[in-house]
């Protein structure tokens, strides 16, 4: 046995060549660009430009194709109160009454689900978490099916089902909260286990309701609520969704550094002046409200809230303020594209959104995972 011949280089001795030298140059590429505030603003501005173009293009496409120029003109006419010629009224109505609310809703929900996914992953410290892991989507589905089957909430007219979904989502969140906070602290593992258990229970309730339903209508609904779709979008729902999701995005962004600290663990968070329990409770209320509203108008679109956060993190790094600045516009662009495919690929039939998000998202995600040294969740 010979002693080891090579002494390990001591990183911290006084002779350390790196000590006192300026920091190494920022890495080139996107991550380097994003390290500066200016770079981040540029990237976000570019993403918003892409989003605007996607929205106008997507509004033009469908069974009746309308060029982006025409689309923009109709949109301008609608917003500014301008006039359109008599022969254009049909095209105008397709653009403004049918497609615009749908595409805007897709953008909102894509942005919201992506940001909520980022927040949920940080607050339960689990890379597999998504907006629906806390039982919200199952609650919404169960609520919607319950309203359909029982004919309840009839006073709300066309909004009855959405209202039922929202009520179900909130009830599920309150249940998850009450059970996991039963003994004071809201630990990440308790939260996620409770969420999964409540989800499974509510799915069973939903199945029971469907089997007890007299007709087949409920079966089709299940597909809609579990896979998602924007087929029911209308101008009526947009104000409510915007009023919850847009401020929610701003609040989540402002939680950026708190989420950084929460991701370090509860002990460390406490030592850095962030009460983990109080922050987790506030975040749970916020993300439940946002998710509930989104699920009520679009069903549970899987995958976006799981994968967009990871893809954005691979590009911009782990700092939550940066992730939460880039994820919403990126998620919005993605969702507008997915919705476009869903209504054009097999027209006139619509594909459920979850099918497309997964078919597109999985390969993209796996490719990026292989190409980048992405270490979320262990090396």
């Amino acid at each position, binding site marked *: 046995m010979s002693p080891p011949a090579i002494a390990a280089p001591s990183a911290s001795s006084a002779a350390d060549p790196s000590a006192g030298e300026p*920091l190494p140059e920022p890495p080139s590429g996107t991550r380097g660009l994003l390290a500066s505030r200016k770079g981040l603003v540029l990237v976000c501005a570019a993403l918003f430009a892409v989003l605007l173009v996607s929205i106008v293009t997507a509004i033009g496409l469908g069974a009746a194709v309308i060029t982006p120029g025409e689309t923009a003109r109709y949109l301008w006419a609608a917003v500014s109160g301008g006039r359109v010629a008599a022969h254009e009224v049909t095209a105008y109505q397709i653009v403004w009454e049918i497609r615009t609310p749908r595409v805007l809703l897709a953008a909102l929900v894509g942005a919201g689900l992506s940001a909520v996914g980022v927040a949920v992953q940080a607050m339960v410290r689990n890379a597999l978490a998504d907006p629906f892991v806390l039982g919200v989507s199952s609650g919404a589905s169960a609520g919607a099916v319950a309203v359909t089957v029982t004919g309840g909430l009839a006073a709300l007219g066309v909004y009855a089902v959405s209202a039922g979904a929202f009520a179900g989502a909130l009830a599920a969140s309150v249940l998850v909260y009450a059970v996991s906070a039963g003994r004071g602290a809201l630990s990440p593992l308790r939260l996620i286990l409770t969420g999964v258990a409540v989800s499974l229970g509510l799915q069973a309730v939903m199945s029971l309701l469907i089997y007890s339903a007299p007709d087949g209508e409920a079966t089709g609904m299940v597909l809609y609520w579990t896979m998602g779709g924007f087929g029911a979008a209308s101008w009526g729902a947009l104000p409510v969704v915007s009023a919850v999701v847009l401020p929610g995005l701003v609040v989540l962004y402002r939680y950026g550094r708190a989420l950084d600290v929460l991701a370090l663990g509860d002990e460390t968070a406490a030592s850095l002046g962030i009460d983990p329990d109080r922050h987790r409770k506030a975040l749970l209320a916020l993300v439940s409200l946002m998710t509930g509203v989104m699920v009520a108008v679009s069903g549970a679109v899987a995958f976006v809230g799981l994968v967009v956060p990871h893809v954005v993190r691979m590009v911009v790094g782990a700092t939550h303020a940066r992730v939460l600045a880039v994820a919403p516009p990126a998620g919005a662009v993605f969702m507008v594209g997915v919705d476009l495919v869903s209504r054009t690929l097999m027209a006139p039939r619509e594909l459920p959104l979850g099918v497309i998000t997964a078919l597109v998202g999985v390969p993209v995600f796996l490719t990026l995972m292989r190409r980048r040294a992405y270490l979320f969740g262990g090396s």
Partner: protein
Amino acid sequence: MELGLEGLSVVTDGRSLVRDLSLTVGTGQVVGLVGPNGSGKSTALRCVYRALRPSTGTVRVGGEDLSRLTARRSARLVAAMVQDGAVDVDFTVEEAVALGRAPHLRGNRALGRRERDLCARAMDRLGIRHLARRGVLTLSGGERQRVLLARALVQEPAILVLDEPTNHLDVHHQVELLSLLRDSGLTVLIVLHDLNLAAAACDRLGVLHDGRLVTAGTPEAVLTTDLVHEVFGVRAAVVSHPLTGDPQLLYSLAPSP
């Protein structure tokens, strides 16, 4: 700034983890907490960095009752280096260290020039500046420990508490870390397993057993053959360190009589 634990007791699920613990750490002193596994060392420490609220008793920093301060305010006075579960998020070393400024910054405010210098100096002190752009998850255990200490220093606390900071460190870095603490001028409360390192590094030691403070005093006064036998159940001879005069223990593997 002086750190005082006054009559601290912690009871969880009917079990008494810390019983009536009183201990003072004078300004600029390094005080070690030692004791067998489960003797309440980490629990007492958790009350100081506010991960745990004591059932009774008070923690005072500079005479002020810690529980009356906001979480942010106390995080500006007391920093901690703790054994938290593995972190899953791939921050760079630079980003992880910069989070030490969290209690000083509102919202997402970026670090100012002075704060960036502060982070750079802390990384220099811990010899991790060359790792600044590396992902934390790619580091060795010892490198991660040094990132944690750099973050605690960047917090600019008056009081630093550490739970087993020498875990995962080789002997060179153990000695270096403890010397750094001694030279920092901070008021330090540190939990250590290694009694010999504790004797070398600390001005005073507190010995915990079953949540009770058995004795406290200078290492010479505390580390006796009888005490080590009584508290840790091992036989050891106490000798004086030939270079420094600190008491050092030589353990005997022979079964206790």
